[in-house]
């Protein structure tokens, strides 16, 4: 390329007189950077660097001056100098190519080609085979997540689903799943087309994020619409409509409504379950955005969601229906602004959940209310250093009432049970600070710490966290270490059935990784990790809270992405070995999430910009469970009492599934796009098993098949402006 391209046609003609400003620009690895715009702020005289990183130009300016170096994909560097220069300048740019060990997905927007992150557009989320247009299920195709069942639960690197925190516009989501269950829920609560940025971290995350032992999923909702638009989607399981309106003076609003029902889906495909009330729901969400100046934005987002479900459940002592009715409300207001090197992010959120669940002797009514506020300030005093500090307050009033059976083996209606009812208030306050330093040469260091205090645990914690990235040749090696604390669920503090003396749970992460390539082309990443748990709070079979659990998770994640010739392929493999205290046996055993191998391979092909075919193959090792070794009959209670074998000593069969999806884009009328999509899940109709149940006397073990046989799904979606 051109070695040094001197400024052509500037307003101020450069002169041959004056002094020379020359030097070299390199990146963190010490490699020269070409195409860097180096100039004097006072005169705007400058030049681009050549392939060797050198720049040179002349100026008549004398005395103090500011040299600025800028290039897309790098942070700006400013250096105060005195002209004429005594010696050539050495400038180091902080590259955006080196990132902490996180996987980052961007919905609705491509990241820069140099950014070391995995990217997904909104449509890629929607068309991920087997994901059923659900964000969480699409994220499950990334490494570091275990396939525990067919739900949307995010089980990250051997951790429980509750150990992954989900945030929307910086606010913690109180109820992130639909039809919530101990393994998450059937789907995520948020529509892929209403989200424009998704960042998922599977461990080693920075001090900004707290109250999470394993992972963080942070999403941003769509901002101010640029143009009036509308859309409608009709599919086998849902009907939805959305409207977006830009308003004068920087305002804009969006509204989306969805009505979902699986009635047609199950009528067409059948189900392995007997529903007394098929899963149904309705959503209404909206946002209002105001750009009060180019760098300043206020955004308010709200969601109301209602889901119902009734399904027949066979237990040894009882056959009946599990009935669930839940309503979620979530609202968050955010403020973002930047003034020179200082940035400001603030949010205030409010959420509420009401939920009732009935199954035989068990009944639970939850009324959970949450208020939260957080503030984050960023300061970049110099090109090599960025400082972030902030704080958060979260208050929850969690009301629980109901009854639970005294004996886990006797769930019949009217069985001996204990009733409970209370409201547990809890406030968590936190503060954090983090410094991100680009050291000269090839190293980048991030150090931070946070402190949290909870009125539930009455304990203050301090979590130090460190991360480093080292660029060598075309590879970036990463490392992270940190301490993580999480306050157990408020339900665990319920005074009758819980334990009011619980302390915070703790984990320590160590992550080592290497990556090369670019996510919009070919990309490769491998990470090794080790997590140590202590002070875990868990529930046993009788739903009693057991404190003091310990454990570990260690494993490896591999991610490969190849793009070319219209094909996009990605392969994610996770290996995990995880054990934790079994709450029933009181001894270390395999974790219920110890799914040793998880493999996902996806291939996508686009033809003529209109047709798209995606194929996904999934494999996962079986899930551990504790078998029943024998049973005796209790004539007094007229119920069989099981005796359990070694904890988590058996596994369900391995899981395998092939999914295919296809879509077709067409423009039926100007300023609109219509997409027709169809998918076949579990194309080979494999009878996957996620758990087992027993007959009344425990002499027969009955595998519980996955909810879906081979199933077809289709729909049409139109957007117009």
């Amino acid at each position, binding site marked *: *390329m*051109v070695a040094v*391209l*001197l*400024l*052509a*046609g*500037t*307003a101020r003609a450069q002169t041959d007189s004056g002094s020379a400003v020359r030097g070299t620009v390199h990146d963190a690895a010490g490699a020269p950077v070409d*195409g860097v*715009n180096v*100039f004097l*702020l006072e005169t*705007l005289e*400058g*030049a*681009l660097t050549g392939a060797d990183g050198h720049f040179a130009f002349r100026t008549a300016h004398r005395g103090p001056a500011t040299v*600025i170096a*800028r290039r*897309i*994909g790098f942070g700006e560097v400013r250096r105060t100098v005195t002209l004429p220069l005594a010696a050539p300048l050495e400038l180091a740019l902080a590259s955006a190519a080196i990132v902490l060990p996180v996987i980052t997905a961007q919905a*609705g*927007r*491509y*990241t*820069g*080609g*140099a*950014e070391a992150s995995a990217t997904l*557009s*909104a*449509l*890629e989320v929607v*068309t991920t085979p087997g994901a059923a247009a659900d964000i969480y299920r699409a994220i499950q195709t990334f490494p570091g997540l275990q396939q525990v069942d067919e739900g949307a639960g995010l089980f990250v690197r051997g951790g429980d689903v509750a150990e992954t925190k989900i945030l929307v516009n910086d606010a913690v989501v109180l109820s992130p799943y639909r039809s919530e269950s101990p393994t998450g829920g059937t789907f995520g609560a948020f529509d892929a*087309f209403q989200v424009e940025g998704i960042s998922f971290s599977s461990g080693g995350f920075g001090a900004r994020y707290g109250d999470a032992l394993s992972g963080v999923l942070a999403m941003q909702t769509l901002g101010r619409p*640029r*143009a*009036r*638009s509308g859309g409608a989607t009709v599919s086998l399981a849902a009907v939805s409509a959305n409207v977006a309106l830009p308003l004068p003076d*920087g305002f804009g609003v969006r509204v989306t409504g969805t009505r979902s029902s699986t009635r047609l889906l199950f009528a067409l495909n059948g189900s392995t379950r007997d529903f007394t009330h098929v899963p149904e729901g309705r959503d209404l969400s909206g946002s209002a955005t105001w*750009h009060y100046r*180019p760098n300043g934005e206020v955004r308010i987002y709200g969601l109301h969601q209602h889901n119902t479900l009734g399904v027949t459940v066979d237990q040894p002592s009882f056959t009946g229906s599990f009935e669930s009715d839940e309503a979620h409300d979530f609202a968050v207001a955010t403020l973002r602004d930047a003034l020179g090197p200082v940035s400001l992010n603030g949010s205030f959120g409010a959420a509420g959940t009401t939920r009732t669940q009935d199954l035989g002797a068990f009944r639970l009514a939850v009324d959970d209310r949450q208020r939260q506020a957080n503030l984050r300030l960023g300061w970049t005093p110099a090109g090599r250093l960025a400082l972030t500090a902030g704080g958060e307050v979260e208050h929850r009033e969690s009301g629980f009432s109901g009854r639970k059976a005294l004996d886990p083996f006797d769930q019949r209606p009217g069985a001996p049970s204990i009733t409970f009812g209370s409201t547990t208030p809890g406030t968590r306050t936190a503060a954090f600070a983090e410094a991100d330093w680009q050291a000269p040469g090839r190293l980048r260091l991030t150090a931070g710490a946070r402190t949290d205090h909870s009125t539930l645990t009455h304990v203050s914690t301090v979590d130090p966290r460190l991360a480093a990235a080292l660029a060598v040749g075309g590879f970036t090696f990463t490392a992270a270490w940190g301490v993580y604390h999480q306050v157990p669920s408020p339900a665990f503090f319920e005074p009758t059935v819980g334990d009011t003396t619980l302390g915070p749970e703790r984990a320590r992460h160590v992550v080592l990784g290497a990556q090369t390539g*670019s996510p*919009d*082309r070919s990309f490769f990443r491998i990470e090794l990790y080790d997590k140590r748990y202590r002070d875990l709070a868990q529930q046993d079979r009788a739903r009693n809270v057991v404190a003091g659990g310990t454990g570990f998770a260690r494993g490896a994640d591999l991610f490969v992405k190849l793009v070319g010739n219209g094909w996009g392929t990605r392969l994610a493999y996770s290996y995990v070995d995880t054990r934790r205290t079994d709450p029933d046996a009181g001894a270390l055993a395999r974790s219920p999430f110890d799914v040793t191998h998880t493999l996902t391979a996806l291939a996508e092909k*686009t033809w003529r*910009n*209109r047709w*798209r075919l995606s194929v996904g193959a999934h494999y996962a090792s079986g899930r551990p469970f504790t078998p029943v070794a024998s049973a005796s009959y209790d004539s007094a209670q007229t119920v069989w009492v099981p005796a359990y074998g070694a904890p988590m000593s058996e596994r369900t069969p391995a899981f395998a599934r092939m999914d295919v999806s296809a879509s077709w*884009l067409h*423009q039926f009328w*100007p*300023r*609109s*796009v219509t*997409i027709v999509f169809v998918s076949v899940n579990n194309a080979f109709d494999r009878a996957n098993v996620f758990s087992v149940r027993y007959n009344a006397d425990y002499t027969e073990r009955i595998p519980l098949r996955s909810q879906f046989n081979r199933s077809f799904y289709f729909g049409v*979606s139109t*957007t*117009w*402006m």
Partner: protein
Amino acid sequence: MRRMLIGIAGLSLIAAAPAPARAQTLDGAARWADSAQHAIEAAIATVNPDRVASARAVAERALAVYAEDPLLLLYRGYALLEEATMRMAIRGSDTSGVSGLLETALDALERSVRRRETPEAHVLMSAVLGIQIGRDPSRGMTLGPRSSVEIDRALDLGPENPRVWLQRGVSAMNTPAQWGGGLEPAERYLLHAVELFEREQAVPPNPMWGRADAQAFLGQVYQRGGRGELARAAYQRALGLEPANPWYRGLLASLDAGH
């Protein structure tokens, strides 16, 4: 190669108008914007992305002082789009940063529009969105309608702006008939653009690119439609406006070679 360039980008708006005498009265941001435009246009005429990057630097330096100036942002976005287009089209070019160039171009143009709406900014946004869809068809669902909206907004703001009609023509030329494009509407739009360019009185530092390009693209429409003599005449008119332009020379040569 040139045809490929056009096919991918649909926008290689090489400076065409005889450069008017520099307005010596311009000052501040306007003076820098005028300089940036001329530097960018001169660089584009070389069909060398490195030279375009160098010219873009003029606008970027000025933005360090005149942050959020709409014209400087417009010219920055224009240069980024052209640079991305050339890197995609020229065999052997480094394309690893093209996504970033396009995103940055869109960001600059959106910021420009926020400060002051111009037909050119909307036209360029439409072009960026079109290229993004071409690179990742899955984004057509969301970006396709928006690209149409940007063109429509450009027409609302500048119904007689020749660069808007030029872009409409280029888009139509590269869009299949079933999606509303084709040679017939492309010819109509480009002829209208040519007519508007004849009447345009460029006022520095406002945009003035596109006059010769309109002839070049019109020639391409004729050539694709098998009307060789009309194509030749259009290419010669383009060369009459910019005799040294290598792209126009190449188009004429390809016509002579029967390609």
